[in-house]
């Protein structure tokens, strides 16, 4: 290894890159929600933090445990101003469900990943709506539909971006 890379400091740098790229890209995606891109009348932009999170999870199942989702969810709750605990609970549950599914389903391909991601996005949207509803939000569930559909359709694009980051992460 060190013959190819050259010095031990580069070696260390590469290890850091390998280890922290998923975490940093996800945190960056979560922080995108504070970046004031536009404020629309009817919001249709997907929740990028969650999309990047499940993309990494489906691409590299071994990289993260459900506990990672718990901490990232905490960050997301603080940054976006959602009720504290919402993303923590939902994201961790999604990770546990992915673990369970992967232990049962013996194979994995592009369409199956998309399918499970779609189920996860729908679960996330509906349960977020339910939490808001319990807390007295009177918005109809139909207002979350555009965002949900666009999120499901945009998942392969986010997946592509994450894949590009993964290639860069593992490049020598």
């Amino acid at each position: 290894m060190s013959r190819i890379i050259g010095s031990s400091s580069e070696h260390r740098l590469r290890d850091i890159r390998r280890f922290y790229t998923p975490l940093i890209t996800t945190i960056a995606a979560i922080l995108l929600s504070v970046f004031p891109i536009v404020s629309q009348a009817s919001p249709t932009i997907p929740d990028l933090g969650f999309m990047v999170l499940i993309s990494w999870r489906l691409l590299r199942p071994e990289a993260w445990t459900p506990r990672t989702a718990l901490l990232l969810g905490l960050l997301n709750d603080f940054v976006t101003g959602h009720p504290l605990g919402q993303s923590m609970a939902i994201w961790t549950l999604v990770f546990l469900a992915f673990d369970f599914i992967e232990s049962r389903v013996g194979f994995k391909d592009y369409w199956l990943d998309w399918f499970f991601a779609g189920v996860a996005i729908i679960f996330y949207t509906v349960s977020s709506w339910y939490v808001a509803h319990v807390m007295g939000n009177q918005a109809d569930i139909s207002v979350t539909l555009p965002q949900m559909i666009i999120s499901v359709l945009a998942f392969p694009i986010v997946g592509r971006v994450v894949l590009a980051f993964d290639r860069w992460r593992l490049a020598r």
Partner: protein
Amino acid sequence: MAPPANRRSGFSRRAQYGLFFGYVLAVAGVLLAIFLLIISAVDPRGFSALRGLALDATSPATAGGRSVIRFFGGMGESVGAYFNAASKNAAMRQEIEVARQKLIETRATEYENRRLKQLLGVAEESEQRVATARVIGSSFDALYQYATLAAGSGSGVQVGMPVRGPEGLIGRVLDSGRFASRILLVTDGSSNVPVVLVRDGTPAIATGRGDGAMDLKTLEVGENPFRRGDLLVTSGTGGIYPPNIPVGVVVALAGDSAIARPLASPGRLDYAVVLRPYQPPGEEAYAPEGPR
């Protein structure tokens, strides 16, 4: 792709226990999160200090991003303005003429109004400004329609205060940090604003729908009093929102209710004024709190 093999811990007891405790920890984490959620439902202001801190930490990024967007957006606008200057100038001059006439009429009405109020012995209660600040960001989530304001408790902004813009009511303060605060827009599903119809004074409640509009519900049963194009202003009932702030315009009728668009459209929010919570005459001091 082959299924990931690394989850199998093999025959190693230690590895098996490690995996098991990992799951126990995750489930405990979910329970903790649900517990936190229940706390935030019961006491919405329980974590306000932490939330304010997070708001402060992220607001520089928000403000910086906003100025970048403003710069690029502004460039396009000024180039266009340069080409249209001549025709715009003429149009504006005409507009000013009309506005001046209107102003004189309004002054006359205002004077008459004041005299009549003096006659009735009604004390004039103007809106009390707390702070004026830039709107630096907004959420793009259907369920949580928030805007971020570049003023916090350092400028006297407190949770529960009403916020208005030049066009009309924007919402009220939900969380406040030291330098930034989060505003619940009137279009959010948990926002309820008591309004009156300007045309005939019918009271109603404007509830957010989550898609950029508001539902209007009258307090009386009977025929639908709304018409398209009706203007709504705050009534001041129940406190918090001072009376006579424009709220929205009726755009559609639906059964015995109506749908209104806010006058302060979220896409054009620019500057906002934070007001002191309104206290209806003859009531006790208002303690800011309220359902989220």
